[in-house]
């Protein structure tokens, strides 16, 4: 199937693999495909996502929150009189160093070699082919992968969109327009 991918679409797949590796995930899920799409600065599809408020930075933040790995903001806590260092010291005295940090289960483990797609991510890529065929496009572009994500409709990527208040129908329409241009 990858032989039908355009250069941009291939780059999305490569980027999604890099994203998974950076996050120490040993799989490529829909969330990594979404990050891969958002990595393509300058791509019209990427621009549509950004117009809807979903930049790569925002997406990473959402994902971090999903994993319970948000950064504690000492300055913000200070404004309501909470001394994060004091809390940290107290907690660490009982539970040991780093007790307040959420350890990623995969952290430290380097993910090497080939990273497999999840079943849902594979489905998204299949659907992107179908989207390209339906639009009578020459190849599968990055926009078709985005449409595949929306068509599949139920992965972590969709939860990220919902979290950011992105309207999938509007997104779909705009990406289709961009692809037809």
């Amino acid at each position, binding site marked *: 199937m990858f032989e039908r991918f355009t250069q941009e679409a291939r780059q999305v797949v490569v980027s999604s693999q890099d994203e998974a590796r950076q996050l120490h995930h040993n799989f490529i*899920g829909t969330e990594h495909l979404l990050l891969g799409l958002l990595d393509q600065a300058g791509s019209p599809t990427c621009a549509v996502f950004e117009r809807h408020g979903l930049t790569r930075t925002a997406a990473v933040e959402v994902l971090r929150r*999903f*994993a*319970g790995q*948000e*950064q*504690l*903001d000492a300055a*913000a*806590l*200070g*404004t*309501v*009189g*909470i*001394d*994060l260092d004091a*809390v940290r010291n107290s*907690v660490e005295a009982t*539970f040991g160093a780093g*007790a*307040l940090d*959420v350890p990623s289960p995969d952290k430290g483990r380097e993910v090497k070699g080939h990273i497999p797609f*999840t*079943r*849902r991510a594979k489905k998204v890529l299949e659907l992107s082919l179908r989207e390209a065929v339906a639009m009578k496009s020459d190849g599968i572009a990055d926009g078709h992968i985005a449409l595949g994500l929306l068509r599949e409709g139920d992965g*972590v990527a969709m*939860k990220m969109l919902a*979290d950011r208040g992105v309207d999938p129908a509007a997104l779909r329409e705009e990406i289709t327009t961009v692809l037809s241009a």
Partner: protein
Amino acid sequence: MADTAEVASAAGSRDPAVGLSAVRSLRILVERLETLQVQNARDQGWTYEQIAQRLGVSRQAVHKKHAGGRGPLRRRG
């Protein structure tokens, strides 16, 4: 934290950005502490029922949140 007056004025800040950021960070902190304390209780042999009573929530709520895979990242294949 040295300037008490500054802290007090920030706590009552009219600027939503300041107030909301504080609320958000508090929520994260609460979640961290809850995870830590629930784990500690479990390690010491507490049941979810006992933990729930202390937290003032239902046993089901504690179990759903802290037992096994949880949150939006749970995969259903």
